[in-house]
């Protein structure tokens, strides 16, 4: 038996075994909607007591802010590692002769739509970050909108336009500021005599933009970190696809 056939056989046995066990376990699971929610019963009143309309933001940035700090650093570490892996090696060179990369031959309608949508998309991203404590969304979601919205410039124009619009060095620094900002905001609680990451600011009125205290500030720090990390990652992947030439066995 060849190695490929043996691995297929192993997969069939293991896969069907796992499928049968999962099927048997289904009978023992609580039916949809009948699950008791002891955490929700406590998390919702806790969020309301701190005037945070978006309970998910309250869970993420107030009740378990420490976990979110870890999550933020997972993203930070992954972005740094990817940037490290995608750096130029000594046997590769930058193709600098013809910098007119990108979808230059796009339809003029797509071109117009891309540039017309650029500013509104960035506004939506900023709105989602700023209203993270009040309405659905927050730093993670808004940061993703900001980073991908910026790349409309690439889809509608070309690489040179994108390069002018996003100086990589600035986003490099912004990523570090976002990550450090979260920790420093957490440390700020120590100066008023509260434990690390306490929501110590006045929480305002439920539903107002300036409510929920620290949740709003944590959202801004995370939004900055996420947007910069995604911009950096996409910058490195685009550089590999468009600029770096030669080197290695490939």
């Amino acid at each position: 038996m060849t190695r490929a056939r043996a691995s297929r056989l192993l997969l069939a046995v293991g896969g069907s075994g796992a499928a049968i066990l999962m099927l048997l376990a289904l009978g023992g699971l609580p039916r949809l909607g009948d699950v008791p929610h002891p955490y929700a019963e406590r998390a919702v009143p806790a969020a309301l007591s701190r005037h945070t309309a978006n309970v998910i933001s309250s869970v993420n940035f107030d009740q378990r802010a420490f976990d979110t700090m870890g999550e933020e650093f997972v993203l930070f570490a992954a972005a740094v590692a990817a940037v490290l892996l995608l750096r130029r090696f000594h046997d590769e060179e930058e193709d600098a002769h013809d910098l007119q990369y990108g979808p230059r031959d796009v339809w003029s309608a797509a071109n117009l739509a891309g540039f017309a949508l650029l500013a509104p998309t960035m506004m939506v991203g900023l709105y989602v970050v700023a209203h993270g404590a009040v309405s659905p969304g927050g730093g993670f979601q808004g940061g993703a909108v900001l980073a991908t919205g910026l790349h409309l410039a690439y889809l509608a124009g070309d690489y040179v336009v994108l390069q002018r619009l996003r100086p990589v060095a600035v986003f490099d620094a912004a990523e570090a500021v976002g990550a450090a900002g979260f920790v420093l905001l957490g440390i700020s609680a120590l100066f008023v005599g509260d434990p690390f990451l306490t929501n110590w600011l006045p929480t305002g009125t439920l539903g107002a933009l300036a409510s929920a205290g620290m949740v709003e500030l944590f959202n801004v720090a995370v939004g900055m970190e996420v947007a910069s990390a995604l911009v950096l990652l996409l910058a490195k992947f685009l550089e590999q696809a468009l600029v770096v030439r030669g080197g290695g066995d490939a």
Partner: protein
Amino acid sequence: MHEVLGVLPYAVAAWILLVGCYGIATSRSFIHVVVCLSLVQSSTYLMLLMVGWSHHATAPVFADVKPGVPVVDPVVQALTLTDIVVGGAVTALLLALTIQLAKRQGSIDPDRIRSLEEELEE
């Protein structure tokens, strides 16, 4: 009816998980592996969200609804958000590794890559 529909989302989550695993095990390209891994991870989003669902409840955001209205479990929704962010980070890192692999070995077929020892012997 409730017996079947009550467990259907869990069955769908299990099915997505197994299909993703099948894709990873039989893949001929590491980019395909990364996509399948994302698929496996998306089964956990479905699982988490379905655990948090309850009858006649709305989203846990009190922007339009008054406090006191029944809402679905916000804790699992927050966990799903964490799940998505970590999934995105892992995907980016794995794709960066795939680019390195393509550069070093000229192939991204899992069956055709050589180990470091084999490379040193050459």
